[in-house]
């Protein structure tokens, strides 16, 4: 895992911890855990997305604004990579 990816995942986990309103502690979740199965909602996805954008100085493009982008930490990390590529 590159340093960049590690930092991204840390930012994702911090955003989930603060805004995810999940019913399990973020520390217990694997990168592949289905976030919607642990209480992630549409409102929370947007709050988490905005927190990640603030933390990493990126903006998710509209085409990534769908459920599959937010399904797991892994998927969010991929979305961050794509967002950087489009910046």
């Amino acid at each position, binding site marked *: 895992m590159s340093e960049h990816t590690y930092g991204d995942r840390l930012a994702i986990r911090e955003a989930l911890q603060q805004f995810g309103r999940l019913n399990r502690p973020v520390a217990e979740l694997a990168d592949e855990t289905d976030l919607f199965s642990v209480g992630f*909602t549409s409102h929370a*996805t*947007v*709050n988490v*997305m905005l927190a990640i954008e603030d933390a990493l100085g990126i903006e998710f493009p509209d085409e990534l*604004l*769908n459920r599959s982008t*937010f399904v797991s930490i892994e998927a969010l990390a991929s979305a961050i990579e794509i967002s950087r590529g489009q910046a």
Partner: protein
Amino acid sequence: MSSFHGWFGDPGIWAAVQLPEAGSLGVVICTPLGQEGVVAYRGLRLLADELQRRGIASVRYDPPGRGDAAPSTDPQAPIQGARLAAEVLRGSGCTHIAYVGLSSAALIASAAAAPGEILVLWSPPASGRVWLRRSRSLATIMIGPDRQFGQVESLIGLDLDPAQAAVLEAIKLALPGGAPALIARRPGEPVPSGLSGATKTEVEGTAEFLDTSSVSSVMPSAAITTIADWLLAQASEPTPLQPPALRPELTLDHSVERIRWIGPNQLFAIECTPRENSGTTPVVVLHAGASEHRVGAGDYQVELARLLAADGVGSIRADRRGAGETGSVGPTEPTMFYTQAWLEDQDAIVADLEVSGDQLALTGLCAGAWMAGHRTTTNPRLVVGIHPLEFSVEPFAPNEFVDEVVMPRELTNPFMLALQRLYRRWAPVWVRRLRARAAAKADAGPYLVDLAKRADRTVLIFSEIDQEVFRRLGGTDAAARLPGIELVNVATLDHPLFARQTRHRVIAEVRSQVADAFGLPKPTQ
């Protein structure tokens, strides 16, 4: 304690004013935009009650172009509406004005407040631009490609043309100065820049109150107490207050709207009649979805009511128990989803109309569709169920229904499939009823059989989600064997009618079906 409802100004705002006998401070509770305003409705009513208990007057309102107010596309209407609401309170004798704005309404409150007026910003976004970015993202996730409809974009329950969006986007939060201000933010939420002169406090429960549906919303009692107590500390010596100068009806090009209080539970309702009322006008009962109040998602019930009036048809949109203005509001009120109380409310509305069945149509969205399809005091000529999801013949107990779409399990075993087909084809109604009462998700058959017996004609309009639920519950097969039931499928995932495009289609379908049922000219869409 006194409350008053009606319209004020031109174009008219709809206003609900609560006055103590004497007071000095009048609070304009700004209405959050779109679905936020629908979800927050009862909580903001509780805030008005708490203010009244402290000797503080308040007004809740719909600005021109939203909810029950007169139509308007003026981009400044939300801000002008807040100032008109303040005028109502000044006219009643309030000497000081405060604006309270929750979330998107914080933008409106900040823009409307003049120097010397008190400001309370509850969970404010950083700016109009930030709020719009968040709302567009949420709408793209929840609505998808249906979000854009010509020049109009749909957020969640809110349509904006480019000029309206530009006005909201340009709002930067600022303090009016010359009076105290409070920022009540969520834990950890940053304070927007430009508000350094305000008192700051953290309040719990905003996410549980606002970031959810009208059914799951939890009343933020502690936050409301904090805000009401802070406002009380700003009030000065009380003076006697006068009833507000509200108009009891709203006259538009094609319709007249009047406030009604219906039945033993005093359901708050607005009737909408054609301006040229013949006396034998058909009437459509409009039931909103979820626990939403009478305007419905994206105000679709108001738009439909006014278009029906132009077609020569009257309507009534009511707040059933647990919604909108009806009944008292408390910090722990039960969820009345799919309850006997709601069926009794429908009976009260129908009885109050005093029309014969051949002049009556019942319509509703989702939970409202379930109500419209149930037996009531008069058999209607037409039932239009919009996006129905529940087909239980028996009501649920308060708090029993869980707010989530559970897709019924589909059988794959060939033997079980054959058994299911036989059951759906041959099982007598009494067996189906017994099974429906016991099943977690009721088979649609008994509900449809009842409906076919009572209504001359039934039209069920489905989005893709509820269409699949209906099919799995055996509804498609059952409807094919019953007389007078028509199924209309709309290619959208927008079950709640958040998108303009979906509402446009549904409204056109309802008007067309009503015209057919009552022998009226086909409406021009």
